């Protein structure tokens, strides 16, 4: 059993008497990759802000491992253009040595920009900088709010791969919000579908069949995800149509755990 980092027990957050997050139970352990998905306004950001301690909770209880160090990657980093800041200086504000800063930047692939101004970075580079900044603090728990936004499609896959490898090298827990359902399903251990309360949670391959998931995201999305997980059960011809009969019984990879219909 790996070490528990944080536990939420019936956590509720309300704004002006309107519940935004309601009755959430959640346990995060070292080594977990937990992804929160859900529609806009479902309270995803509020929930992770509650876990990081930025957002006070209204009811329930939140336990964090004493001395828990959190690496936080906020949704949007709007930097005041009036504040001159280089990546070097921004990283140094963590108090880490320049060697550690450089190697964190190298891990996220933006070390060549060490002396560049943060105001010149593209969306993807900014995300990588924020992740580097979070990981240089050697966090127990990495919390990311839509880490892949502003990153191109190839970059997105690489980014989730990076997050996975960071989990392994830092032996930390990872909690993130994502809208990239297909990529999430491939890169995560546990998915939580949030719509104020937790609609459903579980392994990615199970959740896309869950009625609660289908209710939140609609049949087409759920089907497209189901297709994603079963993409090897049929072939396509050159027009993209499904060709039946060529491989009637799909072959499971070693990791496959799903049942046959």
């Amino acid at each position, binding site marked *: 059993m790996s070490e528990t980092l944080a536990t939420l027990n019936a956590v509720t957050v309300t704004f002006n008497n309107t519940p935004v997050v309601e009755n959430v139970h959640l346990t995060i352990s070292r080594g977990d990759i937990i992804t929160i998905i859900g529609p806009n306004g479902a309270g995803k950001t509020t929930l992770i802000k509650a876990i990081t301690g*930025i957002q006070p909770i209204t009811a329930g209880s939140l336990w964090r491992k004493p001395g828990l160090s959190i690496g*936080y990657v906020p949704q949007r980093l709007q930097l005041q253009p*009036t*504040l001159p800041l280089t990546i070097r200086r921004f990283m140094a504000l963590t*108090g880490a040595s320049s060697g550690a800063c450089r190697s964190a930047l190298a891990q996220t692939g933006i070390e060549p920009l060490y002396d560049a101004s943060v105001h010149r970075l593209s969306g993807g580079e900014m995300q990588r900088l924020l992740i580097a900044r979070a990981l240089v603090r050697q966090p127990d728990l990495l919390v990311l709010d839509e880490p892949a936004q502003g990153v191109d499609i190839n970059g997105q896959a690489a980014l989730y791969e990076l997050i996975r490898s960071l989990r392994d090298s830092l032996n930390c827990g990872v909690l993130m919000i994502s809208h990239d359902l297909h990529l999430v399903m491939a890169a995560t251990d546990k998915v939580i579908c949030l719509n104020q309360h937790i609609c459903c949670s579980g392994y990615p391959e199970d959740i896309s069949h869950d009625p609660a998931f289908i209710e939140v995201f609609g049949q087409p999305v759920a089907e497209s995800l189901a297709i994603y997980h079963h993409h090897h059960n049929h072939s396509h011809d050159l027009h993209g149509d499904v060709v039946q009969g060529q491989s009637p019984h799909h072959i499971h990879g070693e990791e496959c755990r799903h049942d046959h219909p």
Partner: protein
Amino acid sequence: MTILDQVLGDFFWRALIGGLGVALVAGPLGCFVVWRRLAYFGDTLAHSALLGVALGFLFQAPVNLSIALTCVGLAICLVLLARSRALATDTLLGILAHSTLAIGLVALSFMPDVRVDLTGYLFGDLLAMSRQDLAWIYGGAIVVLALLFWLWQGLLMSTIHEELARVEGVPVERLRLVLMLMFSLVIAVAMKIVGVLLITALLIIPAATARRLARSPEHMVLIAMVIGMIAVAGGLAMSWHFNSPAGPSVVVSAFLMFTLTYGLIRQQQQ
């Protein structure tokens, strides 16, 4: 000792030394005004200083002290009111800025025994700097600079990104309060130089000029300090030569430097 006495005995030198002291603290605090978009907030605090003057006369307290205390009180009110979100912050600031100024003016008119040089408070009376004023300015400057040096990393981090700072364990709220106390202190001492209506200019213009020349936050602070000091010296020289009012002259010379650097950088870029 005799040289110092001679220097301090001359009103012009007192004005220069006092002005330079204010520029020294206005530099770093001005940078925070620019970074945190507090221009209107600073203006509101400055306007309330006149209420502080009136209260000082009413309770026969030292004027500098009552200005500082009034600014602190207003700053705390502002933070609490802004948190309730009943009104947009700029509306709230607009109401409080002009109301406190007006209440100050009305209150002063009710004190027939008190003869106040209103122009001095509104636009500054640099040339009437006393030795006591100098002690206030340098005492305040030492306190503010020491606090800034001590709290620099946290202040900078919470300015860059408040939530990130909070997750990293920076006491964001406490630092905000300290920053406001520093503003109040600086306004109380800077009022002598440029007056209620022009204090924000002395905070913002050197910092905004420095932004175009600086490569790091610390660099920007140092340049803002130097530009503020040049502005004070230039304004006094202007006042000496053309017999213009000293406070506004300081602001004019700061503005000239701003336009000059702006123009030079534009030219370089082309």
